Each structure stands twice: as structure tokens, then as C-alpha cells.
């Protein structure tokens, strides 16, 4: 069983994702190495930082192209929060940022009573309650789950992206994360 690759795009906290994987008995590495991204059985695009610097880092390191090739080869990628948003065509964040373009749709500023939207909310039709922390949200035809009518997950081909943080969602999050990884 190969290490799970957590794609490094130069932003802070990847420790929580690693900790959750460890909890599930999976080894992981934080890396932007195109060869590792291509070879790993599981790849996670995590969710921290800002869209502009994340995309710039992914393009500079070659990780962006490695992710596009991996997607074209129908190999699984899990995007979390910003990592999900980066997979769409573009984001309004930071004055407009072009995304990886794996999925159709745009990321727009959240129109909610309180922004950032912080806290636990039910995801339908999946049924779990997960932790959200976001100021932007996807609008995509590839939406497969919602939370309070907002996009909570997108899926197209081998890419699954979630707006919530499974690594911060207690038992429900660990269970979800385990279901996304290839079997032992």
C-alpha cells in the first residue's frame, strides 16, 4: 500500500490531514513532486491558504500538470475545501484566479447570513454532519451533495471534492475519509 500523497502548495496546515490518515492507519507524505502525485494510489489536495498563491505554487512545481494527467488517467483525487475549489474552472477569490479546470463551475463569494460560514452542518443526501469553514463556495453542475442548499461536494470522473473538512469532522469525518481511500 503506497503512501497517501497530500499535495503541497506551500500553505500552512497539512498536519491535520496527516493526523487523520495516521488515525486510519495510513502513511502519508506532503509533496508537490509530479512523480509521486502520478504514482500514488491516493492523492489529497488539501484545503488551506489562498487560491492565488496555491495555484501559483501548483503550476510552478509541476503539481498542477501532474494532477491534470492523473485526472485524465481516471486515477482518484480527493479535494478538500480550497483543494476542491481549485479543481473548478476559476475562482472569484483574490480578484480572480484560474483553477485546474478538472470540473465545470466557478467559485463565488458566499452569500450567507454570516460569512465566513463556520461550524457543523448536515450534508445531504449523504446524511453526515461535517465541519465547514469557508467564505467562498462552488457553483457547479457537478454538485453531488449540498448543505443548507450550498454546494458541499462535487464529483466528476475520478475527482471527488468536498467543501467541508473531513479531517476536522470527528468520527463522521474519519469514516468519510476512510471511504475515499483505496482499500488496503
Amino acid at each position, binding site marked *: 500500500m503506497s503512501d497517501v500523497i497530500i499535495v503541497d502548495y506551500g500553505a500552512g496546515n497539512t498536519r491535520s490531514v496527516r493526523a487523520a490518515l495516521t488515525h486510519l492507519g495510513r502513511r502519508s507524505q506532503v509533496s508537490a513532486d509530479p512523480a509521486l502525485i502520478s504514482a500514488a494510489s491516493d492523492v489529497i489536495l488539501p484545503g488551506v491558504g489562498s487560491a492565488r498563491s496555491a495555484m501559483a505554487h501548483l503550476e510552478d512545481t509541476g503539481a498542477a500538470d501532474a494532477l491534470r494527467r492523473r485526472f485524465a488517467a481516471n486515477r482518484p483525487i480527493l479535494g478538500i475545501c480550497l483543494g476542491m475549489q481549485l479543481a473548478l474552472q476559476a475562482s472569484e477569490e483574490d480578484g480572480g484566479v484560474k483553477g485546474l479546470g478538472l470540473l465545470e463551475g466557478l467559485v463565488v463569494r458566499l452569500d450567507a447570513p454570516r460569512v465566513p460560514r463556520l461550524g457543523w452542518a448536515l450534508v445531504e443526501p449523504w446524511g453526515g454532519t461535517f465541519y465547514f*469553514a469557508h*467564505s467562498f463556495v462552488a457553483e457547479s453542475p457537478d454538485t453531488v451533495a449540498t448543505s443548507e442548499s450550498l454546494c458541499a461536494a462535487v464529483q466528476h470522473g475520478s475527482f471527488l471534492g468536498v467543501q467541508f473538512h473531513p479531517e*476536522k469532522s470527528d468520527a463522521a469525518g474519519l469514516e468519510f475519509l476512510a471511504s475515499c481511500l483505496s482499500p488496503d
Partner: protein
Amino acid sequence: MPLARLIPCLDVARGRVVKGVSFVNLRDVGDPVELAQHYSAGGADELVFLDITATPEGADTMVHVVERVADVLEIPFTVGGGIRSVEDASRIIEAGADRVSINSAALATPDLITGIAARFGSQAVVVAIDAGESHVFSHGGRVATDIATVPWAVEVAARGAGEILLTSIARDGRRSGFDLALTQAVRDAVDVPVIASGGAGSAQHVADVLRITDAALIASIVHENPSGLPGLRREIEALGIELRPVKERV
């Protein structure tokens, strides 16, 4: 809106969780990692760790605590105390905290709020406000300022704070109920979520404040008995407040 949140707060000094009514009478109540796991298992929605020593020497100790907590905790946590620069915030976040809380440093240097938000996003910045009768206090509630509470809350939100942790100094530690009028006034004035703090003494108190705001900080009500948290949650739910369903770990 997401579900109301119950947030236990742990005071940390020299790498240990402590409690006490004043800085001179601190009692060691345990290891931050063990207590964090205990609260998490009991259904805490989030945790706040406050470094009450907040000395430069203590900063390294706190970073180490944050790393250990991040390695075992699968709920979000905020760390406050002694964060005076974007670099300080960055060390804490890179160690695994989801968010940092700033208070006196934001009063001294309001640009700090914007600086941290620009680097890590607004959701990573909590501004803690210690509110007196009508004005804000700094330095752990010891120094009065001439800054009025509600306008300060509006300013911090405009500068990029993603949440306000609002403590009523008069109610803090008294267990006589939250200051509902203060909480309501601040929450009405801003469009970011507001955590109410100071005064939790019963499930009724917590339920009352959760009817008007997003989250409640709880300290002494659970510190005396961390294993009382599941019971407290059930009581609050029985009073009509919906909380997240807490699943047993498999």
C-alpha cells in the same frame, strides 16, 4: 446557519492546563492533549486553548502543545495568547491550529487582523474582545481603553476577523448567565459569527445565549467535571437547541 457550537476553553501555562481565579493561584489540572481528547470524546464542537502566560519564552512551549494536540484531535481548535505578529500566527497555524485568537495585539496594531487574514483567510482569525460596561479592556481585562465595544466589533470584522469571541468581564467566572444584551448588540452590528463568553453556569444559560448567537464558550461549568459534557449537551438539546449528533468512534 450551521448548528450552534459548544466550545470548551482551556487555559494553558507552561505547557499544562491550569485553572485559577487569578494568575497567582493557578492549579494544574492536567495535560492539554489528554484533556483535549477527553472534551472531544464528550462532544465538544471545537476547542480554544489560551496561553495565559503569553511570554516570549512560553511561545515555543505553546507551539509544541499545538503540534501534540493537532496530532490527536479531529475537531477544530483555536489558539490564543501572546500572538503579536503574522509570524507568531503563522507558527501556531503551521503547528496545526485551525485558527488563532488575538486580543490586545489587535487593539495595539489593528493591521495585524488584516495581515493574518490575508495570509490564512478570515476563517483563521478570531478577534477576542473583553467588554466592560461599554468599553473594551486590554491585557486580559486589566487595562481599560477608550474604545467602545460595538464600534470595535464592527471595525475588527471590517478588517478581516472571521469571528468575534466576546467576553463580558462582569460575567466572567460568575456562572450567573451570559450578558445577553451585550451579545445581541454585537451580533446585530456585525455579519461574522460571534462566540459568547462569560457566565455559563447552567444548561439554561447556554441555551439562552445560543438562541441569539452562533457559539458559546464554556469554561468553569465543565472544568470541574469534563465528563459532564455529554450530559450538558443533552440538557441543552432538551431545551430546544439543536447540536450536532456526536457519533461513537468505531
